[in-house]
């Protein structure tokens, strides 16, 4: 049994480290390059379409009921966004976009 679970842990740790390495090696440039094919352009458009407001509605309801923008001021939203980014393990993109929306709509 012991060897089995040590192997399981080993595999999990290696997968995580591997994914981290791959994700960190992709430079930011890759995201901002202007796509030259039609499909890439469409994809890019789709990405832009998902607004901070929509992400707020989907993401901030997952654990508790989502607070509305008016509940806090800009300074508070900055602290809360960082707190939630770490606690809820949100991506940088999600937390930045939602923070922008909350600050623009309060």
């Amino acid at each position: 049994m012991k060897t089995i679970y040590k192997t399981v842990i080993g595999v999990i740790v290696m997968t995580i480290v591997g994914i981290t390495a791959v994700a960190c090696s992709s430079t930011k440039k890759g995201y901002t390059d202007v796509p030259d094919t039609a499909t890439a352009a469409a994809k890019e458009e789709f990405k832009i379409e998902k607004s901070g407001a929509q992400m707020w509605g989907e993401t901030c309801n997952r654990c508790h009921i989502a607070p509305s923008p008016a509940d806090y001021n800009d300074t508070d939203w900055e602290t809360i966004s960082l707190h939630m980014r770490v606690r809820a393990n949100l991506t940088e993109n999600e937390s930045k976009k939602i923070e922008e929306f909350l600050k623009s709509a309060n």
Partner: protein
Amino acid sequence: MKKLLVLLIAVVFGGQMYGQTYNTFEPSKTQFMIRGYGHTGFEYMDSGDETESTFLGLAYAPIFLYKHSDRLMFEAELEFVLEGNQLETGLEYADVMYVLNKNITARAGKFLLPFGTFMERLHPAWINRLPNAPLGYGHDGIAPSSGIGVELRGAFDLGGPTLNYSVYATNGPRLNDGSDEPEEAGILRFENYEDTNLAKAYGGRLGLLPFSDSSTEIGFSAYSTSDTGEQDSEYEDVGAFLFALDFSFVKQISGLGGVVDVKAQYNNSNVDTATYFEIVDGIEEEYSFDNQSNSFYGQLSYRPTMASSDFVKKLEFVGRYSDFNAPEGAEWEEKSVQYAFGLNYWLSWRSVVKLSYQTTETEGGHDGDGLTNTDGLFVHWAIGF
């Protein structure tokens, strides 16, 4: 003339002093917030031959958040509860976190453990849809709730789906070897703030949100340690391996007129077999058992958010099943099943009045060998701020 000069000076300097003291135009770069939550309630319990009813003293949990920069932050939660006539205090967590890059954040201190999702994300009274935790959590639970150590966590955007992870090393649990409390021999205690041996506990969680609407998340957590006993005791190298599976689905479904919320978690704990001692008729006897425990809960709740009536909109209906199985042959052998039903009224996004009926069937447990049926009625009020 002199008087006028003094008055002028006073007005000019006074105005400047006032302006400097109450300058609200420039927000400060560092931010400090006190938030938190409190809850209180009434409970009525009936276990056949015993009934009790009580109002609960308010539990108050202040949370301190200090944001130093866009990357560096500190969080801490204190807990104040009345136990009998005593004020019990606790430090739920206190940790520093630093965002290393877009995919990695480091944390250190005492933090809530991402072993499944219930303890880290769902247990605060204003988040939990029912007045209490499912079976398998809390003091006699098998899922670790917090740990002292270091952690790396973060998330990846997979272009629609997202993946999140965390890996940590903590002081790890302590095995109750029965020397002080023979009836608890074999139980893992996670409130181990000073390590009793050199081995640490290692663990982590991987969560996947497969759909771009973030409605669904599945997670796998593991927690492993090679030693749980006291250093240099015969129990030192009793190891333990725990794992958990969790599921979450939250979505507003127009066809159903509201938000459907499904949460579930399965916990499994496997502690290496060891020999313990019990006193039977004044004679010390050895015994041993297969030290495996597990627990499960599944919860479904529904909020009719699209209803036309303002009152109905704020209602929520909840049902939860949970079970807990402690190892056969242990002094604390137990098989329990619980059904909980609830009706909630949301006064705000962080304040809720919960009415709940629960029925629990316990076979064995700390209190004896027989079968006990306990019915409970709860009215709780939780508020976050």
